[in-house]
């Protein structure tokens, strides 16, 4: 028997494969197509205090081995989530992680406070890639102090695991990782989408209604692996690796690079059962390689040279 389970700051995940925020709705949309009980956890669509309509079309466009999205955090709002979605999520046999988005620090706190009494919510993931209305809309997640401040404020309000989801669109993501670790985060998720853009040459218009959007999918896998490597060497708390994971081999690469668990995003759109297939695939890999605990893959990169992420000539 291979040990697949994993303790994330007090909660036990049955395996190291979760579905990423915004790529699996509230967990109840794919019941015909997948078995959520075979996942390590479900991370909800980002929840805001008020329901959000989201951005006008066009919201998505395919790019080489990737996609851009500009959904605009369309979501039903935290109250409706509690009323309409939590009853189902109480019945699932997998960890439920509520992802929170907001445009002020107070709002982050309010959303968390509303969720805090709900036992069905096992942990929080905080999406800091949100426009900060107080700073003219610059993303919280590109400001290290604000990111730490959000962490500190939320930390005082909950004992449940607090996972900070970092944006890759910064110079040194490890600074952010260290800052949120210092501020009390239990884990970090790396990475959110990479800023990108698509142009329609014929109409000379941006394809997305918001001009730029977030790049995801296999195209960003190399970027995500580098960020996971960088962050996992900078902090002691676990790193959840995300970005372009399509199959078990991809997931294993993230574990080796330093991720304690992985999240599957865009791949769910192609097959919402990807997560469970990956969980099975990791187990098979361990069997073949005579590994008794998936934990021993984590951070097992055999890097004889020690050139660091930022110090090499390319």
């Amino acid at each position, binding site marked *: 028997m291979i040990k697949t389970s994993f303790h994330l700051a007090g909660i036990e995940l049955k395996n190291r494969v979760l579905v990423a925020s*915004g*790529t*699996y*709705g509230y967990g109840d*949309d*794919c019941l*015909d*197509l997948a078995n959520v009980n075979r996942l390590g956890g479900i991370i909800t*669509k980002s929840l805001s205090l008020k329901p959000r*309509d*989201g*951005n*006008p*079309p*066009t*919201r*998505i*466009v*395919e790019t*080489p*081995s*990737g*996609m851009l*999205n500009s*959904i605009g955090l*369309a979501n039903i709002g935290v109250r409706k989530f509690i009323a309409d979605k939590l009853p189902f999520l109480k019945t699932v046999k997998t960890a439920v992680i509520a992802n929170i988005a907001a445009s002020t620090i107070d709002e982050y706190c309010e959303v968390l406070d509303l969720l805090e009494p709900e036992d069905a919510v096992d942990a929080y993931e905080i999406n800091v890639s949100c426009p900060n209305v107080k700073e003219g809309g610059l993303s919280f997640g590109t400001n290290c102090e604000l990111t730490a401040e959000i962490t500190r404020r939320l930390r005082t309000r909950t004992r449940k695991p607090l996972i900070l989801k970092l944006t890759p669109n910064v110079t040194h993501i490890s600074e952010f990782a260290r800052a949120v670790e210092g501020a009390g985060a239990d884990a970090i998720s790396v990475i959110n989408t990479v800023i990108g853009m698509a142009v329609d040459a014929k109409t000379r218009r941006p394809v997305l209604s918001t001009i730029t959007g977030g790049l995801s*999918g*296999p*195209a960003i896998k190399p970027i995500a692996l580098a960020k996971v490597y960088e962050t996992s060497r900078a902090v002691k708390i676990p790193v959840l690796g995300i970005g372009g994971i*399509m199959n078990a081999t991809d997931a294993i690469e993230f574990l080796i690079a330093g991720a304690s668990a992985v999240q599957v995003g*865009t791949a*769910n*759109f*192609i*097959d*919402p*059962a990807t997560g469970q297939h990956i969980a099975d695939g990791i187990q098979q890999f361990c069997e073949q390689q005579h590994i008794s605990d998936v934990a021993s893959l984590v951070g097992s990169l055999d890097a004889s040279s020690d050139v660091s992420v930022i110090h090499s000539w390319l």
Partner: protein
Amino acid sequence: MIHAFCTVLDVHSVAQNIFVLAFSSDTISATVLPGQFVSIRTDESTTPLLRRPFSVYRTKGERVEIIFNVIGKGTASLSRKHAGDLIDIIGPLGVPFNLFSEDYDTALLMGGGLGVAPLPITTERLLHAGKSVVTFLGSRTAAHLVETHLTNLHVATDDGSKGFRGNVVELMQNVLDDKRFQKPKFFVCGPTAMLRAAANVAIARSIACEVSLEGPMGCGFGICQGCPVELLHGERKFVLMCKDGPTFDVRRIVI
């Protein structure tokens, strides 16, 4: 709704750059309703990355047909499939046309270009249900027309190479001016500009009208929020094309 690898039965060209692909799925064939679609992973590759949606064109026994234009990588790849190949399909998906309501007697089907796709299956089920059916079909030239499996057909081509010279909505208006149909209702599928024109006619003449929309989709089954359709009124601003559509009553949405 199922997710399965289905066997390709045959692929053949039916008009210029237009192909019909048939695959085998008794579940889809038995459960699909007119206006619903299937979502196909055309390749195992990451280019294209996402599934591609296609209306169901016809069914027979366990045979399910789609019809498509070769536009980009996904459809090019489909056109090169061979009998016996397996393709990864999710379906049937979406809300079908509301065919079985009592508020109309004559279905006026209208297809522009590949908007013909859902019309044969619609025709078959309508005739079976005892409705009258009249069909309007438009395309660029005669070479792009696929006229089979339709009934009471009126044809328009942009270049006049067959039928009426002009667009299919103009043709339909001419016919409406001439004839009187018993309690008509439109079912329209085609490019957005045509849907808009047809909807305007319907509203002006107080005729019920459902359209089948097209546009980019990420997943096809409601989890990516990538396919918003703006509502004319209601508490929410958007619904989803893949889950709440692709068919809509034109009085509900902004086209």
